[in-house]
């Protein structure tokens, strides 16, 4: 009967022409045709556990998956070492996502023409673009080198095939037979309970946590982005059942960029701790905190006026701190909350700190030298901050809720808000802002609000491969960063709808 019903609905779907219509009707298909979810490739092949054992919905970890990760990708059954595996076992997963998406950005400044000639003026227009696309490709390979020595290697490409090493580390687990002693060295994700690397959403703005990356407009401190993988060493300790967790990381203030061109001689620390509680039928609840504090260079020595990589000095400080909570309301509904209070030194707030341009893939590009237009500012001797400069301060929060219909089907909703509480320009400081308006920087300048909704459906999974049909919508609003051009407000609204097949094998 169930097969027949699926078939009928499938016929209806084939005849549908509208994308929305398709999505609308496929939800019941999904609900009625759910099959048991199976194991995911790399670790599933090793342990014979289905993906749902470790993932609330792949790739987001559940509590058991977090414990497995904290144990160094071991289930602690005395058979974790590779010596116990079939010699043919190779712990590799490939992941890529072909997608269709439509991005619509409001208030984009465009040139105007008259009689085929540029007028020299500009206008504001919404730009919408849609089409088929690809994500980058990830090669995940991870596991154990020996009992209690684990590793992770993740070469990752952008959609054009340009590779970088997204994650590389070796970890010594359970030193002295204690789960409280684990050390990791390499490039890794900070110990965020709400992991951005395991995010369930894929759009440009919804595929990251804004709270983890928020930087005030004009601020050049890129080093406090806790969502980016960082280079350093991490200590992590946890109780046997993982109810209690603490971690401390020492990382180069380089935002994970290699070769010490940035981040040389400056370090940041990241600290996190959490405690879980047994709440009976509701599930295991967890609350915790995190803090990141560090310093980064604002002055790079120059040669011929061009900043020299690795020569950063004049370090200035910054901090990020907040609370996290993971709350379960029975087997189907959960909510994760992350808050953040952030603050940067006034030098960062005025645009100093990122004089070496990064390529966004862990490397650096050719440098240019301020005060040339478009070049980052460099705090060369004798530089003075504008009068009234002060630390930019802000607060942010992320709320992400899930309805897990079954391990195969998850509905996602997220709301994020980033709010400036103190602009880098003093109240009495009059400037021409990025919006072209002269005057004190508005208190809400750069604020972000965004929400994302979507669902992921895994029609099948085996211990050899996985496939998720992914559907998502994201909307983002930022105050004051659009071109003014006579508009009453210069706020930016961007939206994106995305559908794709997220698969791995």
């Amino acid at each position, binding site marked *: 009967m169930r097969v027949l019903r699926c078939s009928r609905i499938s016929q209806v779907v084939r005849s549908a022409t509208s994308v929305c219509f398709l999505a609308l009707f496929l939800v019941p298909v999904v609900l009625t045709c759910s099959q048991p979810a199976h194991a995911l490739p790399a670790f599933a092949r090793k342990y*014979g556990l289905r993906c749902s054992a470790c993932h609330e919905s792949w790739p987001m970890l559940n509590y058991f998956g977090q*414990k497995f990760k904290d144990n160094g990708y071991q*289930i*602690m*059954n005395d058979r974790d070492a590779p010596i116990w595996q079939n010699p043919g076992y190779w712990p590799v997963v490939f992941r890529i996502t072909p997608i269709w998406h439509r991005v619509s950005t409001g208030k984009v400044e465009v040139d105007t023409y008259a009689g085929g000639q540029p007028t020299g003026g500009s206008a504001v227009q919404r730009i919408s673009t849609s089409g088929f696309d690809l994500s980058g490709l990830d090669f995940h390979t991870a596991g154990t080198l020996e009992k209690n020595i684990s590793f992770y290697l993740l070469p990752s490409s952008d959609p054009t095939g340009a590779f970088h090493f997204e994650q590389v580390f070796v970890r010594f687990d359970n030193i002295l037979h204690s789960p409280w002693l684990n050390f990791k060295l390499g490039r890794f994700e900070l110990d965020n309970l709400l992991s951005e690397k395991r995010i369930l959403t894929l759009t440009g703005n919804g595929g990251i946590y804004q709270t983890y990356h928020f930087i005030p407009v004009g601020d050049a401190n890129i080093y406090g982005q806790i969502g980016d993988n960082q280079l350093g060493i991490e200590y992590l300790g946890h109780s046997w059942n*993982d109810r209690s967790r603490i971690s401390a990381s020492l990382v180069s203030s380089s935002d994970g960029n290699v070769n010490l061109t940035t981040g040389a001689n400056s370090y940041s620390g990241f600290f996190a701790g959490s405690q879980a509680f047994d709440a009976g*039928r509701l599930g295991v609840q967890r609350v915790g905190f995190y803090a990141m504090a560090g310093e980064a260079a604002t002055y790079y020595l120059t040669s011929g006026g061009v900043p020299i990589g690795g020569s950063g000095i004049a370090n200035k400080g910054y901090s990020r701190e907040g609370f996290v909570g993971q709350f379960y309301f029975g087997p189907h509904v959960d909510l994760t909350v992350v808050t953040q209070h952030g603050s940067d030194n006034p030098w960062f707030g005025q645009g100093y700190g990122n004089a070496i341009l990064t390529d966004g893939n862990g490397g650096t590009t050719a440098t240019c030298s301020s005060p040339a237009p478009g070049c980052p500012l460099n705090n060369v001797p004798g530089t003075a901050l504008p009068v009234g400069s002060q630390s930019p301060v802000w607060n942010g929060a992320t709320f992400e809720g899930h309805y897990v219909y079954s391990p195969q089907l998850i509905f996602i909703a997220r709301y994020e808000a980033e709010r400036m509480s103190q602009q880098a320009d003093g109240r009495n400081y009059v400037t021409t802002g990025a919006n072209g308006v002269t005057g004190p920087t508005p208190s809400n300048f750069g604020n972000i609000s965004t929400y994302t909704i979507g669902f992921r459906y895994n029609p099948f999974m085996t*211990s050899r491969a996985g496939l998720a049909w992914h559907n998502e919508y994201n909307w983002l609003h930022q105050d004051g960063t659009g071109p003014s051009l006579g508009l009453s407000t210069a706020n930016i609204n961007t939206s994106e709808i995305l559908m794709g097949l997220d698969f791995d094998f």
Partner: protein
Amino acid sequence: MPTRLRKWSLLLGAAAFLMLPLASRAQLTTYDLNTRIGMESHVGNITGHAKDAKGDYRRYCVVCHGELGDGNGEVATWIDTPMYAKPRDFQLGVFKCRSTPTGTLPTDQDLFDTIARGLDRSNMPQWSTFTKQERADLVAWVKHYSPRWATEKPGTPITIPAEPEVTPERIKAGRDVFARVQCWKCHGVAGMANGPSASTLTDDLGRPIAPFNFTDGTRPKCGDTDRDIYRIFMTGLDGTPMPSFADNIKPDEAWDLVFYLRTFMSQKSKEKEMAKQLGLKPVDPNAPAGQQ
């Protein structure tokens, strides 16, 4: 000729009739299971309900233990014995780790503890991430697979006397017990799981099974405290060749044996130190009985 045919027909018919209960067990259906979905468990002051564990079972357990709890989940085929134990067949109602005498059902607490402790050297992880309520629900779920719980009560947990002080004499006495009850035949004279019978062992379902190696640093399946090891001697591991020695070993002797086995283990212990000072030699299987 017709008489002989009739006789054989009768015999075969009778045999088929007698095998009906077996067939009905093999053909356990979701209907049968639904009749037992009201199964409960009681652990401390928590009451577990089988019906509330369905989601967790399907998310975490079904891949090994199967929809019908018969140990034939989708990955069971790939779990090779004797290196790994096959998933438990819950329909049989036979469990290794019990506090109850051999042949009896375990208590709810036994199953509750097993879920959290996991089973080393198997694919059964430590499911300590569940809430106590979730674990109690899963215990009830496990019980609903076997009709035994409908007709039998769990055994009465054995009494474990207080652990005596370790002395060199007790360790030597433990060695004598080890020789007398022939533990070495499976576990080897040095506890390395290489006794003469080791390679021939099978479980009750005829699958190869390896004896426990005391020397490789792994933890005993049913817990690694002295009381846990003591309990194994006295309850046996049902479904495996490890019998209960409750009728062969006195409680004091069982403690002696626990202390002697500690001398094999790789972890530092005072038993190991004492054995070293005594210059204790492994048992000699070829020596006359009583002089091993």
